[in-house]
């Protein structure tokens, strides 16, 4: 097994499929995690992983050896996720979760202001709330928010990637943040 990604890429470019296998072994989990964040479903994430490595394989000739393979494949995965999200019929209304009040009501019931924020931050309940809030995001809200929050893309870049107007991108991010706030505020209210 080649010790570095660069060595594996060099071998894979020469047709060594085992070298490419090594790259898949090293990076597929990280690609899956990114794809899952972006798409929100295991099936879509799986499709993105496949498509990502397929594209990477086909474009190995374009990969600059001084670049970082992980970063490169990560960027391909973001593009694949965006393609998949954009290829879906727009079902924003159907997927949208306007039940902020419902979130609020549940949050009030589970108010835990007596515990320290540090402990709560790590609690399973907070993580469950995050997961639950994430499922309440529409596909576009999720993609826009993930690209802004986790990937650090600017709103302008996100608008171009997702084919949205700048205001629509902002609106998606605002709604996503609002849903997160409503779901999580009771846990982080008084630091």
């Amino acid at each position, binding site marked *: 097994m080649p010790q570095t990604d660069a060595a594996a890429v060099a071998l894979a470019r020469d047709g060594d*499929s085992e070298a*490419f*296998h090594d790259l*898949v*072994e090293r990076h*597929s*989990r990280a690609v*899956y*995690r990114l794809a*899952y*964040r972006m798409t929100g479903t*295991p099936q879509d*994430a799986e499709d993105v*992983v*496949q498509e990502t*490595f*397929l*594209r990477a*394989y*086909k*474009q190995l000739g*374009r990969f600059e050896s001084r670049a970082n393979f992980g970063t490169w494949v990560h*960027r*391909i995965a973001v*593009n694949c996720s965006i*393609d998949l999200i*954009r*290829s879906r019929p727009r079902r924003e209304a159907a997927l949208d979760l306007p039940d902020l009040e419902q979130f609020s009501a549940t949050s009030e019931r589970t108010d835990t202001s007596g515990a320290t*924020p540090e402990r709560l*931050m*790590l609690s399973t309940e*907070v*993580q469950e709330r*995050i*997961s639950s809030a*994430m499922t309440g995001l529409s596909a576009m809200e999720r993609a826009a928010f993930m690209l*802004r*929050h986790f990937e650090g893309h*600017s*709103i302008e870049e996100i608008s171009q990637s997702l*084919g949205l107007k700048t205001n629509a991108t*902002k609106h998606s*991010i*605002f709604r996503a*943040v*609002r849903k*997160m*706030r409503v779901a*999580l*505020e009771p*846990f*982080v*209210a008084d*630091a």
Partner: protein
Amino acid sequence: MTDHLNEDDLVLHYYGELDGAESARARQHLGTCAECRHAHAKLQRVLAAVDTMPEPVLPDGYERTVWARLQPQLDSPAGWRAWLSFSPARLAWVAAVLVLVGGAFFAGRMTQTRNAATQIASADQVREQVLLAALGEHLERSQTMLIDLVTADGDGMVDVSTERERATDLVAANRLYRQSAAASGEAGVIELLDQLEELLVELAASPDKLSSEELDSVRKRIDSNGLLFKVRVLSSTVRERQKQQIRTRTGQSS
């Protein structure tokens, strides 16, 4: 104080998306307004909590599963399939032959006796199946080329010579499939193949290297009419029709 920062301003400020003057105003306001500072701190805590989002749990050996699904797609095609997929020009030639053969079948069908009707129907099915396979292959190749184009990156001039060559090959095949679609009155397919041809012709005529602005313009064209998505959908429909054909034939022969 009337100039409080609203929720959206706070989000933009958090992500550094306010422009210079707005950002300075927000900072200044947060320095003097306890209410907004409190709201901002709360937002920071919420978004910090989001960072603790749980990671999906993957089983041991997940990588092996990925590789098992991926490997067959990486192998270079072999045998007659390789001959077909090696060159779209060959595919076009095959399609032309099939169109002619199809015409012959059609002419023959008009002169056949009633007893031969079943055989002709079966021959028609075989012909359609081969055509579907060729069209499916064409769409997949077009899709791959479009994806490569959309994901091509690089600063300054981007080498698109490979895509240009592929586009040149695909144009001829595309025209033949368009003719076949026109002959059978498939309006949706005709429209898509027209859009595809327009882009293929433009690419075929382009230089080997495009500036990033020129490449962006091509990407925008692909994006604006949803070409990649449409090709995917049609490719999937064609595959489905192939499967349906096979099921029908299997049902007939059993």
